[in-house]
């Protein structure tokens, strides 16, 4: 009886290990598969080249640019809003029915299917505002998708600042806002920055919400054009197809002879970008952590301690 319970235990331990290794193997398989199929994606002629509608050999230059530009636009809008809402929830909101309602709204917003958010964008920015398919419409829709996550990250980062640190600041006569800006925010910055970078990775790969807001086309970009002209790359009121949308379009209606090749290479580029965002988030977390703990200046401190000891 006893030994059979042990055997069962051992079998289950084996099963758990098998599942864990299978999941790791799956990720490795997927990444290797994408990168090997899209081998050669770093060719500058592909990365920065103009796409071709009819002939093979086109690049993804405009799409890549659009993806980054849209990411930056949406971060410019969503980071302050998310930070503000996070501060509100962590510091100012009073417990009660209204706060409960705000949380319900955040949860609802977070669970909205991205296509529904995209359709909302179509309704408001494209149709009602008469903007048509625009970068700014896409950025606003990405903001809606991004905001709940950012708010939660900022809230939990600010709420996790130790109470005694804040009390020390109040004790020195600082007001609530001063404490927030000079004490809480710097302490919470590491978590916030990591959260922002990770959310940036998600925004970079979003496509469903952009089909009906930023559109499926990009005009022939020309940096020399006037800013109000739709061919100026920085005009926020021009249609812009991002890299993720490009992959979807190539798959569903691609007529270029090498559509499959372009799509695989673009997928490889997207994966590499996501990997880079992940690594960047980790690096940022580590550096800031070191900075906060003061260990990046450890040597100096150690030296001065040594010299003090010597003189003593």
């Amino acid at each position, binding site marked *: 009886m006893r030994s059979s*319970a042990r055997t*069962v*235990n051992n079998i289950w*331990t084996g099963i*758990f290990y098998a*599942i*864990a290794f299978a*999941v*790791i193997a*799956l990720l490795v398989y*997927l*990444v290797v*598969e994408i990168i090997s199929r899209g081998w050669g994606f770093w060719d500058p002629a592909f990365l920065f080249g103009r796409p071709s509608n009819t002939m093979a050999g086109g690049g993804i230059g405009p799409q890549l640019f659009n993806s980054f530009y849209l990411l930056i636009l949406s971060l410019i809008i969503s980071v302050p809003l998310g*930070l*503000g*809402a996070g501060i*509100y929830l962590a*510091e*100012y*909101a009073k417990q009660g029915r209204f706060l409960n309602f705000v949380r*319900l*709204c*955040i949860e*609802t*917003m977070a*669970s*909205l*299917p*991205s*296509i*529904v*958010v995209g*359709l*909302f964008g*179509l*309704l*408001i920015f494209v149709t009602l505002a008469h903007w048509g398919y625009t970068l700014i419409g896409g950025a606003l829709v990405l903001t809606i998708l991004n*905001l709940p996550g950012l708010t939660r990250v900022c809230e939990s980062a600010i709420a996790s600042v130790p109470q005694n640190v804040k009390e020390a600041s109040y004790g020195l006569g600082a*007001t609530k*806002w*001063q404490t*927030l*800006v000079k004490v809480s925010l710097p302490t919470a910055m590491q978590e916030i920055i990591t959260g922002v970078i*990770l959310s940036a990775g*998600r925004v970079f*790969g*979003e*496509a*469903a919400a952009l*089909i009906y807001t930023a559109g499926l086309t990009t005009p022939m970009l020309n940096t020399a054009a006037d800013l109000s002209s739709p061919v100026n790359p920085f005009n926020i009121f021009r249609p812009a197809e991002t890299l*993720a949308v490009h*992959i*979807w379009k190539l*798959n569903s209606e691609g007529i270029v002879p090498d559509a*499959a090749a372009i799509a*695989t290479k673009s*997928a490889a580029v997207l*994966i590499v970008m*996501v*990997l880079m965002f992940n690594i960047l988030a980790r690096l940022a977390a580590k550096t800031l952590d070191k900075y906060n703990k003061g260990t990046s200046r450890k040597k100096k401190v150690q030296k001065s301690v040594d010299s003090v000891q010597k003189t003593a």
Partner: protein
Amino acid sequence: MKGKKSINYIKNEYIGRTLVTICGFLIVLTTLAIIIFICQKGMQSFLDSKLSLGEFLTSDKWSPNNKSYGALVFIAGSTAVSLGAVIISAPIGIAIAIFNNHIAPKFGARFLKPVLELLVGIPSVVYGFLGVVILVPMLRENFGGVGFSLIAGVIVLSIMILPTIASIADDAIRGVSPAYLEASYGLGSTRWQAVSRVVVPAAKTGIMTGVVLGLARAFGEALAVQMVIGNTVKLPDGLYSPTSTLTGILSMDMSNTLNGTAWNNALWTLAMILLLISFLFILIIRVISKKGAQA
């Protein structure tokens, strides 16, 4: 001097406070605006185009050319594909959560957590694309048919929602008091007995939340599923036959229709159904966690 100080005080305190409060309200306003606008558009099918709600929900005939709009295929397709994904993904996700906490925590933190984070980060079009170039040909060769099928959608989705389920189940299992585990060991149970009969039941609420969130994510996923499921407007005969989902038809057809037509209105109604179902999932999660808090 005193006056200056109070101006500063007002500037620092009230402006900042007002700004962050506005940010908080903005979230509420945006959420309400989304619900109101989508529902108002979605109701037009019944108010302007005079479609019947009963027929819309129960008919499986969707052919805009014959003016018949039945959404059953899409609702059934979305439900089948997301339930299938959860059936595959939930046991694996829970197993990973147990592994990370009780079998090999160091290995889990070092390898499995980053792996799950990367799986979250892979864009959904990339999942869809991998489905098209790897999974679909594989299904076609081994099981016949076109390869674009319900099962292809289920497999792709199950990979996509695995991190959601695993990470929430992980938190839930970590939250179980170690005293329970020790008490169980003290009674002479093996690790498996302790985990399966004490830890997992104690973490039930959190695990259920993770599963429902995974279901919600699967239900709302658009492009990855649309790319591999085949998009035929027909109830699936089995796992290997193609079908359609709510999100799929929305991502393909919305731009083909003119604003105000019955077809366009019917599509908005599909969007409304999608929105209401995702809201329903949130309510379910709330009920689960409330019950968990009482227990």
